[in-house]
């Protein structure tokens, strides 16, 4: 111990920044981006022949379906597939799969996410959306974008989903909002009660995907607010303030006083 002199301490301490430099220099490999066919009924199919990375444990790609603004990081852990929205909710960089850690990392600022999208390390503060993924009979990887989250019992049929307002008592009151994703619907929905009575002006249905970087918009004090970058919208999806600049996607809705019907058709 007597040998651990002042000189030794200084020499050891000098190694810290060096170690930090070496460690911090570790570069996260981004995943190859691959254009894939457009989603059909919400399913994105990735041919293994085009994505050999998904044949080996730890492999991953970023799939970009034709006609889609979004991209999806798809990974194979060796025992199953997982799919996450690729855009980091912090600044929008594409996350990459780190197989040795079984986590996704944003190469820009180091945010980390579990395989189910749970944020594990900042600067991102909200989760990545995850999607079920599996292999079809031909061995292709299929990402199910429209899987329901269980909030709505009913599924999309003939391009629309209907549910009684009695299932969501919060919608009985003006200002009440329900957030969820019906099975087969192209986006998570924010359904809001705008006014008493019935008719299309009494209920609004808008996409909960922020028009800025795709975070999930949440109801807050009679408005809709994006937790990522503070864009604010009114209950009809109209843009009010923040970096988004444009409103939320709005869906055609009808309401007869007891049943709400939301169409997958968008409206102006």
């Amino acid at each position: 111990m007597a040998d651990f002199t002042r000189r030794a301490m200084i020499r050891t301490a000098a190694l810290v920044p060096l170690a930090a430099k070496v460690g911090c220099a570790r570069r996260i490999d981004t995943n190859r981006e691959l254009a894939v066919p457009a989603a059909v009924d919400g399913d994105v199919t990735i041919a293994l022949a085009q994505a050999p990375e998904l044949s080996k444990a730890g492999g991953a790609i970023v799939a970009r379906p034709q006609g889609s603004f979004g991209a999806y990081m798809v990974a194979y852990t060796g025992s199953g597939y997982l799919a996450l929205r690729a855009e980091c909710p912090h600044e929008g960089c594409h996350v990459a799969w780190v197989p040795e850690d079984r986590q996704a990392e944003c190469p820009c600022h180091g945010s980390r996410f579990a395989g189910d999208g749970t944020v594990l390390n900042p600067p991102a503060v909200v989760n990545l959306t995850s999607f079920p993924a599996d292999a079809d009979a031909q061995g292709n990887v299929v990402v199910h974008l429209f899987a329901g989250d269980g909030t709505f019992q009913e599924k999309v049929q003939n391009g629309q989903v209907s549910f009684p307002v009695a299932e969501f008592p919060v919608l009985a009151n003006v200002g009440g909002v329900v957030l969820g994703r019906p099975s087969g619907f192209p986006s998570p929905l924010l359904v809001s009660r705008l006014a008493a009575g019935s008719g299309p002006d009494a209920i609004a249905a808008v996409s909960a995907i922020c028009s800025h970087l795709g975070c999930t918009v949440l109801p807050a004090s009679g408005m809709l607010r994006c937790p990522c970058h503070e864009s604010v919208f009114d209950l009809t999806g109209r843009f009010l303030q923040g970096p988004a600049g444009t409103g939320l996607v709005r869906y055609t809705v009808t309401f007869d006083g007891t049943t709400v019907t939301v169409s997958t058709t968008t409206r102006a």
Partner: protein
Amino acid sequence: MPLRACILALAAAGCFGGTAPAQCGVDGDCGGSAFCAQGTCIEGTRTCPTLQPTFSSINSRFLQVGCGARQLNCHATDSVAVESGPSFFGHPYTTLVNAPAANRAGSARGLILVKPGDPANSFLLTKLRLTSSTDPAFGPGQPAPAPGSTCAETLAVIEQWIQRGAPDD
């Protein structure tokens, strides 16, 4: 030398954001008797996780384990049920214990989510035992996509924890 090695290791670890490698990415990584939630393998199933009668076990293995396609905590700040129930994000002890229940979808009033020592009058257990999604007194059973799907063993452990005073342990 050992000190030097420790410093080097700590410095290097700091560069990786302080996140330990996850145990799993998908359920299949955990073998047949466990599932993967938030990067951790948990023994049992989502509706029947293996629990200890402690708040930390119940919270990490049951409350924070979600539902639906996202397999995340429904009762969290960015989740689907944010407007219809309490947020269980993080360490929701004070959200639950001795906390009044809003019960917006039911007629019963004066309910307490977790009443220490009194599982029969703890609304959390009432909601988990409901099998209806439209109970007039207590609203929809939980979890919302499959009311009453929590297994008896898990409910018994939660009851045991409440019975012994619902400590924050």
